[in-house]
Each structure stands twice: as structure tokens, then as C-alpha cells.
């Protein structure tokens, strides 16, 4: 295909969008709404993941030792990101600090420190908590392992479910939206069936016939994604400002952290959806024998 032919096809695609304003606007609104829905779903999913991760990241495993001596194999345990060895003295100091009113009492009355040495462990991946706890419990040097227990397990499971199902749901949503986009474009192309049939009859090449339609879908997808991104970004900006005032304890993703990803993925998805939707939409008109 000549470059001039490609340019002509883009021109024809744009002029078709303009010429069939009614169906263009209908398709534009449908694709934009679909992308906004997808964007909000993705943001909700990301924030839910962020919330569970942030809760889990604040969790630590406490492993109480039989003897008050450091255990090397705990420090080198795989999956452990950070460890702190807490001697009975430090534990007592921490306890005294936690109860300032009774600090003197602890120091004067309790002469024989009953507290055990322990390790405070932070893990690399919160999903590993149950596995690491199991390993620690199997060590003879360890007396007791304390962690969030069932709450942590539930949180880990929730993160797994949100992560896995969210991903799956995202793709199902993409497929469903693609179907809507394809059908919308197919309907807007259907009114031009006489033109397609005439072009076929006059000996037009397949690319000549479908080229402008593919450009139309792609251009439509691009502009829809721009509008959808603007709507999502401005709404999210308002939401995070409001949430910072009313729910400061909940760790929402900042606008800055999602802006680049949202714009890039949004535009790519918009263009891809428009393109794939238009391929789907014109496939029945693809010249056969």
C-alpha cells in the first residue's frame, strides 16, 4: 500500500466520522462510558489491593525464643525482609514505655525480668506469612510464634482473591466492553452496506474497503480514551482530596502514582478497543470470493 493511499484512507475515515455524525456521536458516547466504567473498576481494584497490602505490610511476626540468644537461621530465613532481635531488656524497656504511668513500678518491683527474647520479623511478601510462620513453629529454638493469626490469614486470602479475581474480572469486563464497542461500530457501519457492496462490485481491494473503517474505529477509540481519562482523573482527584479529609486513615493511591499508568494504559486500551471493535464490526463485509 502506498503512503498516499494510507493518508487517503485516514482522510476518508475522518470524513466518514464527520459525515455520519449521528452514529459517530452514539459510538463515541458508548465507547467513552465503557472506558470510564473500566477505569473506575481498575482504580477500585488497585485501591483495594493497596489497602490490603498496606494493612499486611504493617503486620509483623513475633517469634519468642526458648533461650535468650540470637538464632542465625531465623535471620537468614528466606522471605524475611527485615528482622530485629529483641532482648528481654529491650522488651522490658518497650513495655515500660508503653505504660508510662507504671514505668517506675516495672523497674523497681520486677527485679527478675520474666520476658523472653524474641525476633520481630517483616516479610518480603505478605502472601508468605503463613508459610514462614509454619517454618518458625517447626524450629526447636522457638517457643511461640505470634502473628495476626486468623485475621492475617483472612487478609492474605482477601488479597489473593482480590488480586486474582480482580484480574480475571478486569479481562471479562474488557471482553464485554469490546463486544459492546464492536456492536456499536457494527451498527454504525451497517448503514454503509450499500457503499461497501458497490466498492466490492467496482473491484476495490479488501484493504481499500475496510481500511477507512479500521481508521474510524481507531480514531474513535483514541478520542474516547482521552475524554474517559480526563473524566477519571478529575473525579479521582476530587475523591482523593475528599478522602484525605474524611478518611485519612485509609491509604488510597495518590493521583500522581496512577496518572502516568492510567493515561498510557487508557490510550492504548482505547485505540486497541476501537481497532479490534472495528475489525469485528467489518468482518462480515470482508471481501470473500
Amino acid at each position, binding site marked *: 500500500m502506498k503512503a498516499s493511499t494510507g493518508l487517503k484512507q485516514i482522510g476518508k475515515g475522518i470524513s466518514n466520522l464527520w459525515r455520519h455524525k449521528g452514529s459517530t456521536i452514539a459510538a463515541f458516547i458508548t465507547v467513552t462510558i465503557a472506558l470510564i466504567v473500566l477505569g473506575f473498576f481498575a482504580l477500585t481494584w488497585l485501591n483495594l489491593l493497596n489497602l490490603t497490602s498496606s494493612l499486611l505490610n504493617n503486620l509483623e511476626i513475633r517469634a519468642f525464643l526458648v533461650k535468650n540468644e540470637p538464632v542465625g537461621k531465623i535471620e537468614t530465613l528466606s522471605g524475611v525482609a527485615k528482622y530485629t532481635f529483641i532482648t528481654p531488656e529491650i522488651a522490658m524497656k518497650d513495655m515500660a514505655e508503653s505504660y508510662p504511668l507504671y514505668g517506675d513500678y516495672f523497674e523497681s518491683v520486677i527485679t527478675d525480668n520474666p520476658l523472653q527474647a524474641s525476633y520481630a520479623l517483616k516479610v518480603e511478601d505478605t502472601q508468605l506469612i503463613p508459610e514462614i510462620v509454619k517454618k518458625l513453629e517447626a524450629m526447636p529454638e522457638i517457643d511461640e510464634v505470634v502473628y495476626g493469626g486468623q485475621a492475617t490469614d483472612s487478609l492474605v486470602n482477601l488479597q489473593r482473591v482480590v488480586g486474582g479475581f480482580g484480574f480475571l474480572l478486569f479481562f471479562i469486563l474488557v471482553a464485554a466492553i469490546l463486544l459492546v464497542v464492536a456492536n456499536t461500530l457494527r451498527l454504525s457501519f451497517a448503514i454503509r452496506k*450499500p457503499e461497501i457492496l*458497490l466498492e466490492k462490485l*467496482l473491484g476495490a481491494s479488501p484493504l481499500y474497503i475496510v481500511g477507512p473503517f479500521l481508521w474510524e474505529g481507531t480514531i474513535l477509540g483514541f478520542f474516547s480514551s482521552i475524554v474517559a481519562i480526563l473524566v477519571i482523573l478529575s473525579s479521582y482527584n476530587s475523591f482523593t482530596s475528599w478522602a484525605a479529609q474524611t478518611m485519612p486513615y485509609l491509604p488510597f493511591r495518590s493521583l500522581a502514582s496512577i496518572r502516568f499508568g492510567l493515561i498510557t494504559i487508557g490510550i492504548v486500551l482505547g485505540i486497541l478497543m476501537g481497532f479490534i471493535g472495528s475489525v469485528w464490526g467489518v468482518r462480515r463485509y470482508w*471481501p470473500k470470493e
Partner: protein
Amino acid sequence: MVNAPFIYLNEVCKVYDNNMVIKQADLMIPRSGFAFLLGSTGAGKSTILKMISGEIKPTKGRVYIKGQDTSRWSKSQKAAWRRKIGYVFQEDRLLSYQTVFENVALPLEIQEMPRKKIKEKVRSILKVIGLGNRINAFPDQLSGGERQRVSLARALVSNPELIIADEPTAQLDPQTAAEIFNLLVSLNRTGRITILMATHEWDLVERTNLPAYFIKDGSLLYWEGTS
């Protein structure tokens, strides 16, 4: 094959869903020839025209164009052949959302002709056809006769080797029908364009004395005419 007929249908048969529309058809049109294809509605005129243009394949038999067996043609060869055909239909098949200029320019756009040349050719053919002043009009702003003339201009603009006219005068008043028909005949005589015109009007065939093929019970009968 210099001496081969321009169009040659050899023992062609066409069956649609167990319905044999054409039992046996033999047809031969020389280059620059004119022939009618006569038959009642549903007799199979359009089927024969579609087999000649390569839109459909015969169930049996062969279609030869300039001595070449079309069953051996690739898709692109068929498309190239269709680009050499000018079509005039009973209903004008103009695109309602395109201007007269854009409608007539379509075959040249398909041939990827440069824009400047397209403008020249379209303006020139519209002038010849008497529609030079309606270049920016839309089809719904034209009369039935004007629309059919635009359709004829679209068929002629690419200098076709063959014009397939499928009942082009059926929906026109007698005067406009005569104008369009005379235009086709003069194109054949002066422009040396091969013309195959489907019609159901026996009067027209008798009056002009041009060769005709009659479709009767799925078979083609030849009438030589007297011209």
C-alpha cells in the same frame, strides 16, 4: 488470444440451493459488440451478468473473458477485471450522502488515480453527460433521469472495456429511457465500448434490431438482429 471473443460463456449452468436458474447458457460477444439479454423478471438475467463480472461462479461450464478462463483467476485478477467494467443498474445505486462529484469519482478513487486527474475526468464526463452544473448536488436533489445519468457517468468515467447495464431504463419515463438508451448505443458505436444490456422489453429489442440473447426456461436463445 487475439481472435478470442471478448466474452464467451461455454455451457454454463447455475444452481442456487437446488434451484437451477440457468440450465445451459452459451453466449458470445465480440469486442466492441452490443447485445441485449432479454428475459422476464427472475429469469436469470442478473445471474448471467454476475457470472460475467466474476461476482459469482457458474456451477458448471466456463466463463471466458478475452480468451481467459475466469475460473483460474485469483481474487485480485477478478477485482482487476471488475475495475474494467462500468455498471448501470435499474436502481441508480448512488450513495445518498455523497455529492454527484464523489459518486462519479468512486471508480477512479478505487483505481487510486491522482486527485488532480480525478477532478479533470469527473468534470469532463459530467459535462459530456449534461450535468456539469450539478457537480455538488446530492442524489436526492436530482430527478430520476439525472440520477440515472450520474450512474452512467460513474460507469463511463474509468474508460471501461465493458458496460453491464441491468435494466437501466426500467424505472424511467419513456423520453428519459430513450435518451439513456441512445447514449449507450452511441457509446458503443463511437466509443467502441462493449455493452451488454439486460432488459425485459421486447419492443426495444425489436425496434433497434441489435443482437439479443433470450433466456427461456433457463436456456439462452440467440437472436441475431438485423443491424
